[in-house]
């Protein structure tokens, strides 16, 4: 724990309130009996259960004693009892909770089972019955509450301690034959004290509430002694004549309880160091660009047209854009790969292309057309229907992208029910049909199963089938095979290729693996630090113009790679999107970079061949082969 962090938390509003409250309580507990002790027991003649007056701001009780003075004086006894409860409870809990660690496995298990049973019963209820054994009175109440409170503390101790007991340094101590009790005091206790201290602190608040409850129902402090609970019991019957006599101790119980709960929270923050990094949100009133006029009708076979897409996300000092000016066009039946390292913005691009950018991120583009329809000019309902029927998404992790509580068939069928108003039975039939189309054997039985019963590859095929429920014109596949085994990868990619061929759907295939893209796509977009740096046909990959694309290709091992040499990799790391250099983002890692690269950013322009490149010093295939 660093000192400055403690100071930071203590000077926060929560910290100030907590510390002030605790100081006030402790000061009252120390000083009040000394200052007001006489006044609290002095019987004011003739004014029993009187309402508030100048002499008695909170009125008097049934014997005519000043309620305010009594409330203040009662602070000491109330706090002392609560602290005693926690002290005794913690001591018992600590012993019971660490015993299973020291004892053998079997005895330990019995203790834990007993604890689990005890914890099922609310502490206050246990205390009520224990109070009968220990007898009514302050001592009996403290003992009953402490014993009732011990099991939950023991369990907390046990769970934290068994975490530590399995740690390597404890195993090492065991191997060295350090005695068990020594392991406990040397290794276990010091390492579990933090969570226990935090818990004990907030439990003082809970103990205060419970012990006051016991006093209130007559099990706790007995007259002539009084704590807040006792005062409440005396004041409540007179609530019609002098409400303050019941309300004053009630308010003190709540405030004191709150003070200790807050103290526990504050300790958690100071010890655990929760940092509330405040992010600057991109404004939703972003100067949004107007959709470009629709007068240029796109070619009929273009399913996705995206011009100058920018995605803005919150940042610590200011919002920043991990995706800038990305443009792409996909035609029917075409598979286009989008490649880049993690953090290059390719997944954000994919989500934005599918209109799935979620708060607090903001996506904006000059043109965003699906099947020729400018999405931002459409009514929301029509847009949802268009996207629901003609766009399909395949996500990276098939284990988590199917809903575990719904049958697989249901998750497919609902697409047709929602967008084509198909009846339940027809939708289900289509779901079974689509499952068989992605080569799931026994689709009728499989449709009735939950995703839990599916393997990873089957789940990914089921997700693809989900996209096939309508007539997809565009499939956005975001790392569809990264989470799968190599053999299953081939199968899933083959399925995507087949679907694209048979249904004429375009596929935007996002991958960090240029080999996957090279094998499956016809065209490649290479992204670096949020921008497309090169666009080229797969056939031209070997003669890529951008040094980064070349480096990516060089990093693929193949059968001819010399295995005695280390694999080629790209030195350095990609820059963070919130901190981009002024010039070409790849310049710091590029062997060909010069001053111009570092000062001025190259725009994407025709590379002379079939593609486009953003580089001041592109590798020219002819020159390279001559060199």
């Amino acid at each position, binding site marked *: 724990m660093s000192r400055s962090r403690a100071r930071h938390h203590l000077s926060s509003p929560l910290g100030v309130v907590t510390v002030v409250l605790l100081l006030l309580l402790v000061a009252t507990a120390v000083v009040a009996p000394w200052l007001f002790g006489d006044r609290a027991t002095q019987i004011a003649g003739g004014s029993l259960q009187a309402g508030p007056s100048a002499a008695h701001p909170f009125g008097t009780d049934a014997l005519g004693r000043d309620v305010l003075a009594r409330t203040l004086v009662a602070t000491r006894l109330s706090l002392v009892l609560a602290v005693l409860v926690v002290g005794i409870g913690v001591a018992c809990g600590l012993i019971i909770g660490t015993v299973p660690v020291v004892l053998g496995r079997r005895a330990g298990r019995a203790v834990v089972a007993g604890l689990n*049973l005890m914890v*099922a019963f609310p502490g206050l209820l246990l205390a009520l019955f224990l109070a009968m054994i220990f007898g009514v009175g302050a001592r009996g109440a403290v003992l009953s509450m402490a014993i009732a409170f011990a099991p939950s503390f023991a369990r907390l101790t046990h769970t934290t301690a068994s975490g530590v007991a399995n740690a390597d340094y404890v195993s090492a101590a065991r191997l060295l034959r350090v005695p068990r009790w020594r392991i406990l005091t040397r290794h276990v206790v010091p390492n579990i004290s933090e969570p226990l201290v935090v818990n004990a602190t907030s439990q003082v608040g809970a103990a205060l509430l419970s012990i006051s409850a016991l006093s209130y*129902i007559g*099990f706790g402090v007995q007259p002539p002694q009084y704590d807040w609970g006792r005062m409440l019991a005396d004041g409540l019957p007179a*609530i019609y004549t002098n409400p303050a006599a019941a309300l004053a101790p009630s308010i003190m119980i709540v405030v004191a309880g709150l003070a200790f709960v807050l103290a526990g929270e504050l300790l958690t923050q100071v010890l655990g160091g929760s940092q509330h990094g405040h992010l600057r949100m991109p404004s939703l009133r972003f100067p949004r660009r107007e959709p470009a006029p629709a007068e240029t009708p796109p070619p009929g076979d273009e399913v996705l047209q995206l011009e100058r897409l920018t995605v803005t996300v919150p940042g610590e000092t200011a919002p920043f854009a991990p995706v800038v000016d990305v443009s792409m066009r996909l035609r029917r039946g075409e598979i286009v790969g989008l490649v880049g390292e993690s953090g290059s913005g390719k997944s954000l691009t994919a989500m934005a292309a599918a209109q799935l950018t979620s708060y607090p991120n903001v996506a904006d583009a000059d043109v965003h057309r699906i099947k020729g329809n400018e999405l931002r000019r459409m009514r929301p309902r029509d847009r949802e229907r268009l996207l629901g029927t003609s766009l399909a998404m395949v996500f990276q992790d098939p284990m988590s992208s199917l809903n575990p509580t*719904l049958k697989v068939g249901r998750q497919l069928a609902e697409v047709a029910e929602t967008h084509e108003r198909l009846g339940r039975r027809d939708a289900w039939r289509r779901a079974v049909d689509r499952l068989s189309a992605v080569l799931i054997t026994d689709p009728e039985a499989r449709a009735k199963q939950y995703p839990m019963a599916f393997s990873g590859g089957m789940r990914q095929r089921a997700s693809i089938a989900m996209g096939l429920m309508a007539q997809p014109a565009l499939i956005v596949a975001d790392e569809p095979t990264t989470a799968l085994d190599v053999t299953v990868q081939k199968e899933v990619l083959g399925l995507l290729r087949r679907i694209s061929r048979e249904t004429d759907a375009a596929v935007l295939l996002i991958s960090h693996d240029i080999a996957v893209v090279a094998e499956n796509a016809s065209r490649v977009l290479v992204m670096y630090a949020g921008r497309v740096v090169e666009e080229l046909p797969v056939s031209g990959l070997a003669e890529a113009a951008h040094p980064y694309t070349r480096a990516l290709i060089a990093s693929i091992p193949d059968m001819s790679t010399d295995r005695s040499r280390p694999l080629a990799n790209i030195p350095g790391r990609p820059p963070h999107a919130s901190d981009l250099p002024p010039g070409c983002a790849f310049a710091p890692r590029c062997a060909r970079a010069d001053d111009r690269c570092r000062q001025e950013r190259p725009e994407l322009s025709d590379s002379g061949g079939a593609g486009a490149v953003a580089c001041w010093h592109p590798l020219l295939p002819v020159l390279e082969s001559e060199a």
Partner: protein
Amino acid sequence: MRSSLRTRHPWLVFLIRRLGRFVVSLAVVVTASFAMVHALPGDPVRAALGLMAPPETVAATRERLGLNEPLWRQYLDYLWNLLHLDLGTSLDTQTPVLEKMAQLVPATLQLGLTAFVVCLVVAIPVGLLLGIATRDGRGRGLHFGFGGVTGLALSVPDYLVAVGLVFVFAVSLKALPVAGLSGPESFVLPVTALVVGPVAYLARIVRAETQRVLGEDYIRAARAKRLPARLIYLRHALPNTLTPTLTVSGMILASMVAGTVLVENVFAWPGVGAELVHSVLAKDYPVVQAVALFFGAGILLINLAVDIVIAVIDPRSTIKES
């Protein structure tokens, strides 16, 4: 063999294990209720009847309660009587304890179950709506407001909520009855006092769970299917929040049982909780034993029911248990 039984009939294995645990726990509760009286220091009968009671009466009562028998014999008799629903006679009123309980239990059950239903009906929709409204860090003001309000509600114990309610509605506004079980309106204040804390707690859990679930990949997938918001939240998100919600609900129901004791006392509710306080103070041991059995068995039953319901809606949990 065992493992094959486990894989073929996870349900059967789950039920056997869970019921076994229930029976063992129940045996512990019964034994504890028996041991409670014998753990008392001194002579319980003398304590109950008072120092002024004539020695013959004490001796006769000891004889009647079987306290002169050896301990194992008393234990067996206790079990035997329990099986025959004989809970003994109250030392205070000399009436059969079973009769007494038969009058008190319905009042407590009405109060507790009404409070539980109200708690679920309020907390789950509130938690769900707030989880939706504050997803992905939206609505920071709402987020802090909710945290503050529920934090406050959690830090005021039920009996003090009851005191506050009595003051506001019965003393200041004179709008609602403060004591006793008379009609539907007499439920308003006790039920409110019981649910304030549990509603805040459960709503927090439901909201946190909703936020967690809304961040899951399958919700993104459901959005990608362009399902209407209603389906995304009710069909895809809600069922996934149910398991933790139910677990917490069981804990809440158990803690409400303890809450009834205090709240019944504030509102002079003719139930088991108020009787418990009275019989402990009067040292009426047979009644205290019966109340202990009622609360103990009740809480064990609640936990059993929760585990079985969770197993039904979330089949994965049966595997965990077995």
